[in-house]
């Protein structure tokens, strides 16, 4: 009885997790797939199966607006966040007291709930009396109706996300930097390499696996973080902050179009899968490197 076959042992060890995975990940995906190909007429009457919901989805200008918004949002948050994380990480990697304090400040937003950040930023972005406008005015710069104009609302949301996430990514950069042998930098310095050259030739290449990992996390966040949009703008003004998940939420609940919402869910899942498969490749090589 001691010597159970590994397969049997593995089976019952994995059973609870697998069961739950199926219940709350894979079965829901299949259900969403079913819902996406189920066609319903007016009043929820079943009319058959087909790709009608997908046709409706791709014909909906609102969907493409959501996709483009998400793309802008994605690039707008990921690039500056990671760049900031790298710059701050490199600048703060020494173990001085001041650095420790600054690092803490940068990382604080990470432990705040996104809804709390959104609540905070409702005030920060208020025209005139809000934190941003008030202090901009002290510098003599005119404020704007940040959340109230389709031109600026998405960028306001982007700014919020950068504030929330950059610290998290910085932590990974710091860990990655710690893994770079100091001898490499010493040797380069002796060779007369300046700070910038060392950064470009040594730091960046050796940070690649870390950055690849951070990129995956950041991309997942781009699609799945939506609390701030729901709380602050509801997708507006004029659909300018409507990102994919908010679009799905609205289609399902505000417009009662569960078929289209399911189709959009499938499309998003497919997109996420594609992203993760692509990044898993880079990750796998990174993992080997780490071990």
């Amino acid at each position, binding site marked *: 009885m001691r010597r159970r076959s590994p397969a049997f042992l593995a089976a019952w060890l994995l059973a*609870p997790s*697998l069961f739950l995975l199926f219940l709350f990940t894979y079965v829901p995906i299949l259900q969403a797939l079913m819902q996406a190909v189920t066609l319903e007429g007016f009043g929820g009457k079943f009319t058959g199966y087909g790709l009608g919901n997908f046709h409706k989805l791709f014909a909906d200008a609102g969907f493409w607006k959501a996709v483009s918004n998400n793309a802008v949002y994605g690039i707008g948050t990921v690039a500056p966040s990671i760049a900031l994380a790298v710059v701050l990480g490199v600048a703060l990697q020494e173990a001085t007291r001041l650095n420790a304090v600054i690092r803490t400040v940068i990382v604080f937003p990470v432990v705040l709930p996104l809804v709390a950040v959104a609540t905070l930023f409702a005030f920060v972005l208020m025209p005139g009396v809000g934190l941003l406008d008030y202090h901009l005015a002290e510098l003599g710069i005119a404020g704007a109706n940040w959340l109230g104009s389709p031109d600026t609302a998405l960028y306001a949301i982007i700014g919020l996300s950068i504030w929330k996430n950059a610290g998290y990514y910085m932590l990974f950069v710091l860990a990655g930097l710690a893994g770079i042998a100091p001898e490499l930098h010493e040797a380069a310095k002796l060779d007369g390499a300046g700070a910038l050259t060392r950064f470009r030739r040594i730091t960046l290449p050796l940070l690649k696996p870390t950055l690849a990992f951070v990129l995956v996390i950041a991309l997942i966040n781009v699609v799945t973080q939506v609390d701030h949009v729901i709380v602050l703008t509801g997708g507006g003004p004029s659909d300018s902050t409507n990102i994919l998940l908010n679009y799905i939420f609205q289609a399902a609940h505000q417009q009662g179009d569960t078929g289209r919402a399911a189709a959009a869910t499938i499309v998003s899942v497919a997109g996420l899968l594609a992203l993760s498969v692509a990044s898993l490749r880079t990750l796998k090589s990174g993992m080997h490197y780490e071990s």
Partner: protein
Amino acid sequence: MSPRGLTRALRGRGARLAALALLSGFALAWSTPLLWMLNASMRDMPFGARDAASLLPDFKPSLAHFSDAWTQGDFAQWYLNTLIVTLGILAVQLVTITLAGYAFARLEFRGKTIVFYLFLLQLTLAAPILIVPNTLMVVRLGLYDSLPGVMAPYFASAFGVFLMRQTFKTIPRDFEEAAILDGASFLQMIRLVLVPLARPGMIAFAIVSVTSHWNEFLWPLMVTDSPGKMVLTVGLTSFVRSAEQAADWGLVAAATLLVAGPLLLAFALFQRQFVNSFLFTGIK
């Protein structure tokens, strides 16, 4: 030192000071929202005040906003629910991830790669995307508007499984083999030998899990209705909604701090552990 060396050293020093000043200024700007929140929660904030955004504290800071928020909201209930949810999720997760992590770390079996990928894929299929079908699942299980309903989808954690797998891999097999030879049953071996050795990994995971579920909003919002089942994030939003309409920023700031406070405090005190756990769980 040669004159050239001196200038170079001084220029280096100047550059460093400039960099330091820049960084400090940046950090200050970065922290203004939090500073404002701290200040506003203890300051008199009359409606329509032009200087609502000021960072200057009043002479006599008061805790009136906090007591108002506490009495007007239902923070005690929300705290209780949030604690039940986060600790409940963690408790079950620790069991499922330990068992599954062991399987991946120590056992070879047919189909291991496929199962591995099943878990791996779940990492990216994050819960928010599946909210609509998951709500239906919870309803079908009869768990709608209940705390177990909020917890259930998170009981299995692919993230945790990989973490434990990694952790177990770093523990030499000798300990397990010795325990088995001493007559321990399989479960006893896991409980008494492996778990204590895997503690750093489990603590790291615990911090990440509690933080992320403490801050969860959309899912609890969708699956609960009754005020008695609200968690802090949902309670905060509903509470703040009416306060925000009223532009009662002092109240909003105090309420937000009541929700975010514990984690902020924990982070400030146990910084090293938080940071390490974020990294530990990430890099591995």
